[in-house]
């Protein structure tokens, strides 16, 4: 079953309308947005509104596979094409014929495979590994990424010509914190979904106060994170526990929310305009709510610099470690610091692998 695209915000309504208008054009689509915003949901919606919905929807994750495997998955191979190719195997382009090929995480496709992809999109033909024959393909290509491809182009990790070829229709999904109106209907939808999956459970819908907190939380993991919370609530049966467990140490979250939700205070002052505002950033490192005398005493550029750079370093280190499956020596090479420094910093910032 495909997930419906839930949402009432202007941006989601516009995306729905756009889907409706382009579902039968077969033009290449590029979907962008942070992790968990619903890129795959949008790809599925395009497919199910199109005349191709009776054919296959084939997904391939370009970030999950090593280069050579990704290539053979995409194009297939002939018997004997490489050691271990005992018999011929069709690729995703073939399986997706007349249907949709969803190139997920296209921004992570190794640059060496991008030129072949470009060629296939240009000519509509491909040849499996170890074969000289070119096969015609009729697939609708929908690609998604959470990278900023313009930046990747500048860093030479993504081909400009491939970008323009994919970017014929561009669907940008804003992060959930920029479309808070979608939060209540998403909660409603997933609450009902899980409730029907676990009818015996004691989960409840959030009350007005909880809903307000949920609507003002910045959801760094977007809809996926919200969805997980609702699922967890069905089991834990307590919204306050769920809210307590929301990661607060995220750089996008202002100090007010971080401390206030922690203390579970009843009067939560939520400032929705926190994202880029100056005091929002500063308040992460100094308490702005005190008298200006005390404040001026507390503000020290050196101190704030240390706090801010620690915060960012911690995030970057965790990010890289997660990407390389907590392989410390690889992470230290990527970060261009010594192995010892990395271990030291991990202890200092309390970065631990997940249990």
């Amino acid at each position, binding site marked *: 079953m495909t997930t419906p695209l839930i949402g009432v915000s202007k941006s989601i309504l516009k995306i729905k309308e756009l889907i409706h208008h382009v579902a039968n*054009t077969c033009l290449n689509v590029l979907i962008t947005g942070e992790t968990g915003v619903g890129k795959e949901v949008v790809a599925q919606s395009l497919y199910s509104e199109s005349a191709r919905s009776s054919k296959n929807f084939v997904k391939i994750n370009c970030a999950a596979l090593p280069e050579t495997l990704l290539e053979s998955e995409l194009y297939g191979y002939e018997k004997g094409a490489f050691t271990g190719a005992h018999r011929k195997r069709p690729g995703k382009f073939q399986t997706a014929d007349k249907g949709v090929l969803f190139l997920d995480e296209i921004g992570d496709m190794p640059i060496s495979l991008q030129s072949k992809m470009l060629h296939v999109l240009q000519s509509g033909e491909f040849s499996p590994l170890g074969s000289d024959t070119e096969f015609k393909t009729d697939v609708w290509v929908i690609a998604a990424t959470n990278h900023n491809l313009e930046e990747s182009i500048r860093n030479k990790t993504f081909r400009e010509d491939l970008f*323009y070829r994919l970017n014929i*229709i561009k669907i940008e999904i804003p992060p959930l914190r920029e479309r808070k109106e979608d939060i209540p209907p998403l909660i409603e939808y997933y609450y009902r979904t899980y409730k029907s999956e676990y009818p015996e459970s004691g989960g409840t819908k959030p009350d007005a106060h909880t809903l307000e907190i949920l609507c003002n939380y910045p959801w760094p993991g977007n809809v996926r994170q919200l969805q997980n919370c609702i699922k967890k609530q069905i089991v834990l049966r307590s919204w306050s526990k769920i809210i307590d467990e929301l990661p607060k140490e995220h750089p996008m979250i202002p100090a007010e929310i971080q401390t206030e939700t922690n203390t579970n205070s009843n009067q939560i002052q939520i400032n929705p305009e926190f994202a880029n505002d100056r005091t929002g950033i500063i308040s992460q490192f100094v308490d702005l709510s005190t008298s200006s005398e005390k404040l001026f005493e507390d503000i020290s550029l050196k101190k704030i610099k240390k706090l801010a750079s620690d915060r960012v370093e911690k995030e970057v280190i965790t990010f890289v470690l997660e990407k390389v499956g907590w392989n410390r020596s690889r992470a230290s090479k990527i970060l261009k610091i010594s192995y010892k420094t990395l271990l030291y910093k991990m202890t200092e910032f309390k970065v631990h692998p997940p249990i």
Partner: protein
Amino acid sequence: MADPIKLLIVDDNEDILSTFYEFFNSMGYEVKTAVDGFAALKLLREKSSFFDCLITDLVMPNISGVGLISIVKKEYTHLKIIAMTGYGDQPGALASEAEADVVLFKPIDLFKIENTVSELLNSKDDNE
């Protein structure tokens, strides 16, 4: 006197859009404008037979100019298409591939575009 020629001009840069609007209006054309390919497509879906010529930028959000051209070529075949781009060769090449009648590179002389429009529409009259 004949009906004025009806143009649909698409660009995500409002300054360019209003300059074009003023210019073609003063030259006696009937002009509608759209800020991206999606807005343009909606205008076309409302009254496709209304327009004679599409002048479109290429790199735009939602539906790009290349996307718009491909759709117009399939669904509204009577329209003449002029593509304009300020982004180097690639979008321009894609626009030619999508069979725009003319591809121009920015900055573009307004009188030159006007010339191109009337040439395109005259050749259409000749063919009919």
